[in-house]
């Protein structure tokens, strides 16, 4: 029997498994002598469970169907996960808003600490994680007799490939579920652009874009590049773009191959979100902007001239 039994809570929506789950699996596979189980909570989780079963390295998928599991409410999921966690040494979720909301509630019910944003596995009980907006990395160790509940920093791990064939087992989890928390709606800013968290290329705009209309030149460039579009907090606060486009300490942490920052000054809270980008390009009219300290390629000038020009020359 494996020494480490790892339970991963699947994130999914609309019948599709979120890639964050496959990244959690990669993290879990770095733990020696481990056996990985994925738990799918849904009203009918068959299709998601099948997707999870196909992930390499997964041994077993538990499908917990319940009418109460239609929307991922932390108050409803946490007691079920806590009940299921018996017999597991680790319980992981992604450090997306889903996992950040849920996993601390699970940890408190189990009466064990939670580790946030683990970015590297040193051993089964020792991990590394960022603090101070990623300006320091700490090594954390939890005593071997405690269950480890953690969120996995998705930008630090590649998604595991398909090719697995885990068994799927339906499970009935008998616990009292609260009714004090009710889902009302979700308003997703619909867009057919690639997803910010998984896109290979991301074009981001800041306050300098000046208006929602100003962002058009970025959408147009993004279309040419097949890129997702992100933004700084200043652009979101000003109402130029919706909140789900924010990149940074309090927005999304991303790891694209190419990140193009346009009219973004490079505040530490923004840089936190792009530390793992392979190549950073900065376009800014201020040659002294801090973004140039981290950019691999910098171009000084007026974005309203340079961005359309860039799009043209990429033809």
């Amino acid at each position: 029997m494996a020494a480490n039994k790892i339970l991963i809570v699947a994130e999914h929506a609309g019948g599709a498994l979120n890639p964050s789950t496959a990244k959690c699996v990669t993290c879990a596979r770095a733990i020696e002598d481990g056996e990985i189980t994925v738990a799918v909570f849904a009203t009918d989780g068959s299709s998601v469970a099948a997707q999870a079963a196909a992930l390499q390295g997964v041994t077993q998928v538990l499908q917990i169907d319940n009418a109460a599991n239609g929307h991922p409410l932390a108050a409803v999921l946490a007691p079920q996960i806590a009940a299921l966690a018996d017999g597991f040494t680790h319980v992981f979720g992604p450090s997306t808003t889903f996992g950040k909301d849920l996993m601390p509630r699970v940890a408190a019910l189990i009466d064990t600490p939670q580790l946030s944003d683990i970015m590297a596995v040193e051993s089964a009980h020792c991990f590394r994680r960022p603090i101070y907006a990623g300006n320091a990395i700490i090594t954390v160790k939890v005593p071997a007799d405690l269950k480890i509940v953690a969120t996995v920093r998705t930008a630090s791990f590649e998604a595991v490939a398909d090719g697995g064939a885990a068994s799927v087992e339906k499970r009935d989890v008998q616990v009292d579920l609260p009714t004090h928390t009710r889902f009302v709606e979700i308003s997703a800013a619909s867009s057919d652009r690639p997803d910010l968290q998984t896109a290979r290329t991301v074009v981001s705009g800041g306050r300098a874009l000046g208006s929602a209309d100003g962002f058009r030149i970025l959408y147009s460039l993004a279309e040419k590049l097949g890129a997702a579009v992100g933004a700084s907090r200043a652009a979101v606060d000003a109402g130029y773009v919706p909140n789900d486009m924010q990149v940074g300490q309090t927005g999304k942490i991303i790891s694209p191959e190419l990140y193009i920052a346009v009219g973004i000054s490079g505040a530490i809270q923004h840089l936190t979100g792009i530390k793992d980008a392979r190549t950073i390009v900065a376009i800014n009219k201020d040659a002294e902007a801090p973004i140039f300290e981290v950019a691999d390629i910098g171009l000084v000038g007026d974005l309203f001239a340079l961005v359309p020009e860039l799009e043209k020359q990429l033809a």
Partner: protein
Amino acid sequence: MAKILVAIKRVVDYNVRIRLKPDGSGVATEGVKLSINPFDEIALEEALRMRDRGAAEEVIVASIGPAETQQQLRTALAMGADRAVLVQADAGAVVEPLTAARTLLALVEREKPQIVILGKQAIDDDNNQTGQMLAALWDRPQATFASTIELKDDKATVRREVDTGLETLEVDLPAVFTTDLRLNEPRYVKLPDIMKAKKKPLETVTFTDLGVTPKQQVEVSHYEPPPVRQKGVMVKDVAELVGALKKRGLV
């Protein structure tokens, strides 16, 4: 009438570029400006607005930290909180989120608030846990990462900032809320309010008074700087930029 409990944390000011101690034992905080965690300021602002709209009659602000945390609590009183409670921890002691949540639970049991508001994360350890843990231990609803909170009778409707957009939840009170950045813009403290705040009650209690045994279960063994990025190149025009991107196989 209803009370609101707000939890605040004393942290290195968000404008400070932190430095690590050379021996890797921690972050240098000597001589560094310390402030209320920005998300907690938003939590307090929201509570004050709720009270001023008549949704509650008292805002209690609590913090867990060393004696110097009185400074941040005084600032909170100057912003408009009615009274403050400091749960005094030893200087340099690490208060883990689970201990913080247990301590806040003890305060909740003592004060019986309808609403508890916390920042979604502290910008020092970036844990994002305490609110959720408190809600679990209290067995009450949580609405995290809130960007609007509307109260009606014994319910709240909360819009939450999530990865896919904005989610709306309805929760029964009492409940725990954690704040996102766009919930409100905290007020500035005016000088006369600082004077007035000196007369407001600030109580100091110990973990023992509250019946809480602080536990440190996570051992932090080493602090290191993040890997530094190599200094990049500057290009002079778009043609050069496109050339550089092509050379790297990025376009």
